[in-house]
C-alpha cells in the first residue's frame, strides 16, 4: 500500500468522524428549531394579538363537542356546562358555572366558582382566592386542559 495513501487514510478517518457528527448535530439542531417553531401555532379563527385558551387534551378522545381554542374576547368569561356560560362545554365533570376569568388592570384573573370537581392551575388545585394568569399557565377543569396564551 502506498505510503501516501496510508497517511491520507489515517488523516481522513478523523475528518470523516468529525463530519458525520457535525451532520448529526446539524439535523438535531434543525429538529430542535422545528419543534420550537411548531410548538404554539396560533389556531384558526383567532385574530392576532387576541389572548386565547388552547385545548391541550386530545379532542379525539373526548365524547363531547369541544373547540381547539377559545378566544378570551370580552372583560369577563365564565366557563361551565350551563347554557348561560360564555364558553359552554358539555363535559359531565364540569359544574354548571365552573370557573370565571376576568380582565382588570392589565391582568387576567381566574377564580373557581365553587365547582364540584375543582380547578387545577399547573397541576395544583386552586382554593377560593382568585389568581393572576400568565401566558403558558395550564388550566385543568373536568377532562379538559387548556394552555393560556396571552
Amino acid at each position, binding site marked *: 500500500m502506498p505510503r501516501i495513501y*496510508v497517511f491520507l487514510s489515517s488523516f481522513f478517518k478523523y475528518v470523516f468522524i468529525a463530519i458525520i457528527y457535525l451532520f448529526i448535530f*446539524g439535523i438535531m439542531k434543525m429538529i430542535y428549531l422545528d419543534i420550537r417553531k411548531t410548538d404554539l401555532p396560533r389556531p384558526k379563527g383567532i385574530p392576532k394579538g387576541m389572548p386565547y385558551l388552547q385545548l391541550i387534551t386530545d379532542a379525539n378522545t373526548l365524547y363531547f363537542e369541544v373547540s381547539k381554542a377559545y378566544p378570551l374576547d370580552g372583560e369577563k368569561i365564565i366557563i361551565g356546562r350551563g347554557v348561560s356560560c360564555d364558553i359552554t362545554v358539555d363535559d359531565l365533570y364540569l359544574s354548571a358555572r365552573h370557573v370565571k376569568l376576568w380582565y382588570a388592570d392589565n391582568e387576567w384573573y381566574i377564580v373557581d366558582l365553587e365547582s364540584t370537581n375543582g380547578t387545577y392551575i399547573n397541576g395544583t388545585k386552586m382554593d377560593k382566592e382568585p389568581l393572576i394568569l400568565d401566558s403558558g399557565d395550564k388550566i385543568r377543569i373536568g377532562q379538559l386542559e387548556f394552555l393560556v396564551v396571552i
Partner: protein
Amino acid sequence: MKATLVKKPIGMLVLINLLAFLLLFFYRKPHNLQILYVGGSIMVLNVITYSVIVFLKLGDEYLFLIASMLITVGVVMLCRLNYTLGIAQVGWYLASLGVFYVTYIAYRYINFWSNLKWLYFALSVALYILTLTVGVTINGAKNWIVVGGHSFQPVEVIKVLFIFFLAARLTGNNKKILNLPENYATAFFAFIFIAFLLFQREWGIMLLFFFCYITLIYIYDSNKLFVALNVLVCTVVGVAGALTMHHIAVRIHTWKNPWSDISNTGYQITQSLFAIAAGGFFGTGIGMGRPDFIPEAHSDFIFSAICEEMGVFGGVAVILLYLIFIYRGIKIVLTLPKGFDKCAALGITIMFAFQTFIIIGGVIKLIPLTGITLPFISSGGSSLVSSFISLGVLQAMSARGNEHGK
C-alpha cells in the same frame, strides 16, 4: 451563501461524499475511474432527491437526509470491500428511488389502503408459497428467488405487507370469522405469517415479526390478558424452538460461548468481535483494516466492518443516525389522526427500530446472532427496495400529518 451551505447537514453530506470517494479512488492501483462515477452518482441522487423533497414540500425533510447518509456510509464501505458490490448498490439505489417516488405518490393520493387487508394476506401467502416451491437456498435459509440471474428475497416485501395487514386489522372494522373474537382472529393470521418463516428457517425475520406484532397489540389492544397470552405463546414457541431445533440451539450456544468452537460455529461472531476490537476508538482508516476476514462483511456483518475501519465513534454515529431516524418516525406518528395511517406508520417505524437492534445486537454479541440486513447500509437490492418502500410510505404520511395539523 456558501458558508451557510457548508454548515447545513446537506453540505456535510456532499462533503463526505466528495472526500470519501476521492480517497477510495486512490485506494487501489490501477486507479479505477468507476469509483468516481459511483461517488458522483450517489452525490447527485442524494442532492436531487433532497431538493425535490424540500422544494416541492413532500413532507418531512429529515427522514431522507438521514437515510441518504446511511446509504453513503454503506456504499463507501461496499466500494472498499468490493468494487462490483458498490456499483451494484448504486444501481439498486437508483431503482429504489424510483420505487420511493412511486410509493409516495400512490400512498399520498390514493386512499383505499386500509380496505385491502385480504389482498395483503393473499399476496404474502402467495409469495411464501412461491419461495418454498421455487426458492433457492443461500446461506442456510431457503428464502431466495432467482429470476433472470438476479436473486431477490420475497420476505422483504412481506415485511411491509405484514405491517399493512396488521394495521388494517387493528384499526378497521372486521367481519367475524367463525365466531372468534376479533383480536384472536388477528392473532391467528399473524401467527400464520410467522409460521411460514419457520419453514424457511428465517429466524431473524421471525423474531422481527414477533417483536412488531407484540408491540402493536400492546399499543392497540386494551385487553391486557390477551397481550399477556400472546407474549406467553411467543415465549413458549421460542423456548420450544431453542430446545428442539438444532440450528437455534447452535446459535444460542455460540452466543453464550463463541470461543469454544472458534474455527467452526463461532467463527463469524469471533471475527466480528476481533474486527471491532482492532478498530479502537477512531478505527484503522478506510482501506487499512482487514474486514475481509469477517464472513458476510458486505451484508449482515457490515456494522463490524464499519466499526473496524471507522472506529467505535463511527459505529456509534451509525446507531445515532438510526436513533434520530426512528425519533422522526415516531414524531410523524404523533401528528397523524387516529386510524390506519397512524398504525401503519408506527408499525413501519418500529420495524426499522427492531431490525436495526436485532442485527447490530447480533454482531456485537449482545443477543444471539440472526441473519437479517441492516436497513439502508447492507448490500442487497431487495433490502434496499423494501426499505425505500417503507420510507416512501412514511414520507407520504408525514405530508398528510402536516395537512392534518393545519
